[in-house]
């Protein structure tokens, strides 16, 4: 999005981290609701992320090149009797952004980290 700062928002970081974790578990691609339910199950969110918030974040990540997406084959969806899914996968740029965010968090002063002691 134009005019936005280059850093990742907490939800964007959560989505990317969830995508990476899911890939470790064998999911090469994920759809929006799957990411939301994984984030809830992993305790990163108490409730399922609101629809508008989730898809806005996914859209922003895709526009910034951190996610790539494709539409599922309609025949597969038809066979399973459901609407077709939009499938996302993390790009190398997305992985780099997560690593960079982690490094930044690790090197940040304790007072700026969650639970850190204020100076």
């Amino acid at each position, binding site marked *: 999005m134009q005019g936005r700062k280059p850093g990742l928002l907490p939800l964007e970081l959560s989505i990317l981290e969830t995508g990476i974790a899911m890939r470790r578990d064998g999911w090469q691609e994920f759809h929006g609701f799957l990411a939301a339910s994984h984030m809830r199950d992993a305790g990163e969110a108490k409730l399922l*992320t609101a629809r*508008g918030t989730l*898809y806005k974040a996914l859209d922003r990540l895709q526009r910034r090149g951190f996610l790539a997406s494709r539409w599922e084959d309609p025949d597969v969806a038809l066979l399973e009797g459901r609407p077709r899914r939009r499938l996302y996968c993390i790009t190398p740029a997305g992985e780099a952004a997560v690593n960079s965010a982690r490094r930044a968090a690790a090197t940040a002063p304790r007072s700026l980290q969650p639970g850190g002691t204020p100076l």
Partner: protein
Amino acid sequence: MSEFFTLLLREAESGWVWMYTAGMPDEARAARVDELESDAWEHESEANSRGGRFGFEFLQRFLFGMPADVSWRVSHGREGFEPRNWLELLISCLLVVGLVVALPVAAVLLPHANPPPSRQSTMGPLLAVDCLLVILVLVLPGVLVIDRWPVAGGLLVIIGCLCLMALFWWLREAMGVIVLGAGAAAVSALRLYRLSRDQDRHSPHR
């Protein structure tokens, strides 16, 4: 939450998506609608399999996501905006104003308004004739032609409903204004949304 209410909720959400995507290029709009439809299906399927309360969760996700929907729409701005979409956008704005602004205002202000003594009576014969006239001249023809000419039909229904609302307003029939306004706006939005979706996908039976 009953199945009927869940269905109503999903339709209301579909109408909301149709409204805030108005004026966008067909492809981008269809993609958004498809993605949210898929999300709702997955959510309902997951809630059914684990015995969750789909209706409440859906309502919560829908309501809390509304500001982000608007922000998402604003971020897409005028990309691909075509002049033919202006009328559609105007209708959408009318519906949004009707639903989001006018109805809560009517709900809050009307019950406290002091009705003029001469007009305090309930539906008199004059009002009944007025209402019948508006229904016969505007609402009914609008409903009849909305399938063939969605914009013209939708406008007739909306104008007719606004006239009826004005009549009720004149008599300070608060509940009449609220129920009629909400019902009319919802019906018009749903009809227009469905027609628009059918046209988008070139599939008359969806």
